[in-house]
């Protein structure tokens, strides 16, 4: 096998590994999380993420709940979508990941 053929094969292998559900199992997530420093537990689902928050009028929460009821999506998904709409309006990079 030539060098380029070997490269093509290994690239396809890496690309093919991107989708299996097994790579996203709770077990593999847990094993990928580095040990937290003592007294600073961070939930695995929050690893590698930052918190963005704001104090808003209660009506925002009420309307948010109504959208949740209509779409069945969780708050994280809705905030992600809202922020990406904001980014698109201002021509800054939108983010594909939640």
């Amino acid at each position: 096998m030539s060098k380029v053929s070997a490269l093509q094969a290994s690239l396809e292998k890496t690309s093919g590994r991107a989708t299996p559900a097994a790579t996203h199992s709770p077990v593999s997530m847990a094993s990928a999380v580095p040990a937290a420093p003592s007294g600073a537990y961070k939930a695995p689902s929050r690893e590698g993420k930052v918190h963005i928050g704001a104090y808003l009028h209660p009506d925002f929460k009420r309307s948010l709940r109504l959208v949740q009821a209509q779409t069945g999506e969780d708050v994280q998904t809705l905030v992600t979508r809202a922020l990406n709409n904001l980014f698109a309006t201002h021509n800054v990079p939108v983010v594909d990941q939640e």
Partner: protein
Amino acid sequence: MFTISLVGQKGGTGKTTVALGLAVAASLAGMVTAVIDVDPQATATNWKDRREAENPAVVSAQASRLKQTLETARNGGAEFVVIDTAGRNDDSALNAARLSDLVLIPTRANVVEIETLRAVSDLLRIAGNPPALVVLNGIHPTSTKTAEEAHQMVRSVFGLECAPVHLCHRQAYADAPMTGQSPQELDPEGKAGSELDRLFRFVIEHVNKGTFEHV
């Protein structure tokens, strides 16, 4: 390993044309070459399906796996890697810009397209200002002023530099992909192939900071 990414906010500016042209130029120069296609339209990957030659290797990859795919390319002995991104301002373009030695931004030399460079300029700032050059594409072959005026506009309005080599509007750019080729292969003596070859040599020289001898 040289890593070049093609970034731009619009579709149809020539990102894939430049990506494949550079990749073939690198292949013809004897370099083990890979194209990482993170554009969901997978134009480069479809080109590879029509291609008979094995170099360059082309893989369609998810933007979120770009780092791992680049690592695989490096471990697989790739010497020249081109990342082709989608024509929109998103995190795949951002990741590609962050992971590249040089970002190329193909654009046509009209004000409508040049205006979109503001968003690309912002993206580059967020990516930490990697080395980046605008590549003018679709210039009329007999025009002498257009490219020069566009260079000045790009520099003065957006603070971006243009590559000294631009691509003209030539039929070979449309014909070559139909058979999985690039213009250099379709017509080795042609002007389109010559433009791509000069662009490739400039890119290598630019990344290498003048040490071009090994190519």
